[in-house]
C-alpha cells in the first residue's frame, strides 16, 4: 500500500506535540512510574518523527532508527524499572520527592 500523502510538516508537528506532552509529564509528575512513562512518550515521539522523515525520503533508514529506538527504550525501561523496584524496597514509596536527599 502506498503511503498517504501526509505533509511532512504535519507529521513532524504531531511528533513535536507528543514530545512536548511527554516533556511536560517529566516536569510535572511525582510518580516515578509516570515519569518513566513520559520518557517513553518522548521516545515514541522521536520514533514517529523518524518514521515521518523516512517516509518522506522513502528509505528504510527511518524504520531502522525506529527499531533502534525500540531497543533503547527497552533497555532503559528494564534498568529504570529495576531501579524503581529497588527504591520502593528501600524507601517504601515511588514518589520522586520522597527519595530526594541530594542537593546543595
Amino acid at each position: 500500500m502506498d503511503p498517504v500523502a501526509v505533509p511532512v510538516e504535519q507529521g513532524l508537528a504531531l511528533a513535536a506535540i507528543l514530545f512536548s506532552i511527554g516533556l511536560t509529564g517529566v516536569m510535572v509528575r511525582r510518580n516515578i512510574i509516570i515519569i518513566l512513562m513520559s520518557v517513553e512518550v518522548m521516545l515514541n515521539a522521536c520514533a514517529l518523527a523518524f518514521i515521518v522523515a523516512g517516509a518522506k525520503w522513502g528509505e528504510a533508514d527511518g524504520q531502522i532508527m525506529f527499531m533502534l529506538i525500540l531497543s533503547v527504550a527497552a533497555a532503559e525501561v528494564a534498568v529504570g524499572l529495576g531501579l524503581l523496584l529497588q527504591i520502593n524496597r528501600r524507601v517504601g514509596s515511588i514518589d520522586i520527592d520522597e527519595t530526594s536527599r541530594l542537593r546543595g
Partner: protein
Amino acid sequence: MSDQQLVAILPHILLSALILIQMMVIAFARNLVTTVVISIIALVLTGLAFIPVHSLIPIVVTPLIVLDGYAIFYSGLILMSATAVTLMAYDYFKDREERQDEFFMLLLLATLGALILVCSSHFASLILGLELLGVSLYTMISYPRKGLLTLEAALKYLILSGVSSTFILFGAALIYAISGSLGFAELATIGSAENGTGELFLTAGSALIFGGIMFKLSLTPFHMWTPDVYEGAPAPVTAFVATVSKGAIFAISLRLFTSSGLIETSSILTGLSIVAILSMLAGNLLALKQDNVKRILAYSSIAHLGYLMVAFIAAGMVGGGMVGGKVLAFEASSYFLFAYFITTLGAFGVVTIVSLRDHEKDAGDISNYEGLFWHRPLLAIMFTLTLLSLAGIPLTVGFIGKFYIFTAGVTTTLWLLLLTVIAGSGIGLFYYLRIIFAMTKRTDASVSEIEIPLAGGCAVAAISAAMLLFGIYPAPVINLINNLIA
C-alpha cells in the same frame, strides 16, 4: 565487509568477545579477582588491537563507523581511564557489595559504548553508543544498592539522561527529515544546498542535539544533575562518569559538529559561546563555598567543560594565522581532555582511597581530608597535585591544558571567552586551595586510619607521576596528538 574493515573494528570485536567470555566465567566460576583480571586483560588487549588499526587509518567501516587518528586517540584515553577505574573499583567494591562481578562487566560494556561513540560517524551508532554507555552507567551508579543516595543518583541520571537522549533523537530526526541523511559527513554537502527552511531545520535540529549533548557534558543550564550524581555515585563510578562518559561525548560532538560543518554557523557559535561562559561562571560560583569534595569536583567539572568549550568554539572559527585554527583547536581540546582525564582520575582515585574506611558513605565532606598532609603525606601530595592541576598551575599537566585553551582562544581572538576563563580560574583557585588548606590543618584526626590499597594506590601514583611528567615535559603527548589528529 572487507578484511581491512574487520581489522579496523578488531578492538571492538575483541572487547565484545571478552565481555561475553567474562559473562561465562562469572556464570560458572564467580571470583572477583578473576573477573578483574579478565577486565584488565580485555582493556589491554583492546588497546593493543588499535596498533594494527593505526596503519589503516582513516578507514570507513559501514556508514556507521569511521576509524581515524582522532578516534584512536580518544579510544586510548578511554581505555586508560577504564583501566584506572577498574583498579579503583576493585579496592572500592572488595568489601562492599556482596556480588561485585557484574560491575566489572558493566564497566566493560560502558567502555565499549564509549569506544563506539568516539568512532561513530552516523546517528545510529551515536545513539546506540550513547545508550550503551548510559544504560551501563545507570546500573553502575546504583550498584551498591543499599545506599539510598546511589539509587537516587541513578534515578535522576536515568530520567534526565533519557530526556536528553530524546532531545538528540528528535534533533536527528529533524535533520534527517530535511537532509535525508543520517551520516555526519553527508550533512556538510546537503546543508548548504538547502533553501532557507532547510537552514532552519538544520539549526533547530542541531540545537536539539546540542541540548542533549550539553546535558551529557553537564554544561550550564543542563548541569544540575551533575553534583547530585557525583555525590551519590560510588567514587570510582564518578570517575568514570567524569572522564570516559564526558570525554567520549565531547569527542563525538566535536566530530559531529565539525565534520557536518554545522559549527561554522554564526548563530550556533553564539549559542555555544553563551553556554560556555555560563558554564565557566556557574560551575565555579557553585563550587565556591561548597563543603563536599565530590560536589566541588562536580562543579569544577562543569567549569572545566566550559573551558573546553573554548577550544570547541575555536574549532568553528575561521582564521588562526600561522598555526591553523581548526587543527590547533582539535589539538587543544585533545590535550585539555587528556589533562582533564588524568587529573580527574587522580582526584577521584584519592577520594576512593579516603572513602575506603566508611562503607556507608563516600568521603565527601571536606573535614574528611583535614590533616591528611601530616598523616598520609603521599596521598595528600597526590591530591594536592591533582587540585593544582585542576587549577591549572604549572608543574602539572593541567597547566599545559589551560595553556592550550588559551592558545586556541587567542588564535581565534575569543577575548570575551578568555576573560571568562581567567575570572573562572580565579574563583576556582579559591575552592581548590580550600581543600589543600584543609589538608594542611594540624589535627590529630582519624585520617591516620586510612590505608592505601595496592591496586588503587598504584593507579593513583602512576596518574600523579603522569600528571607531573606531562606537566613538565608535554612534548611526547603533543607529538602523539599531532601525529594522530593533525
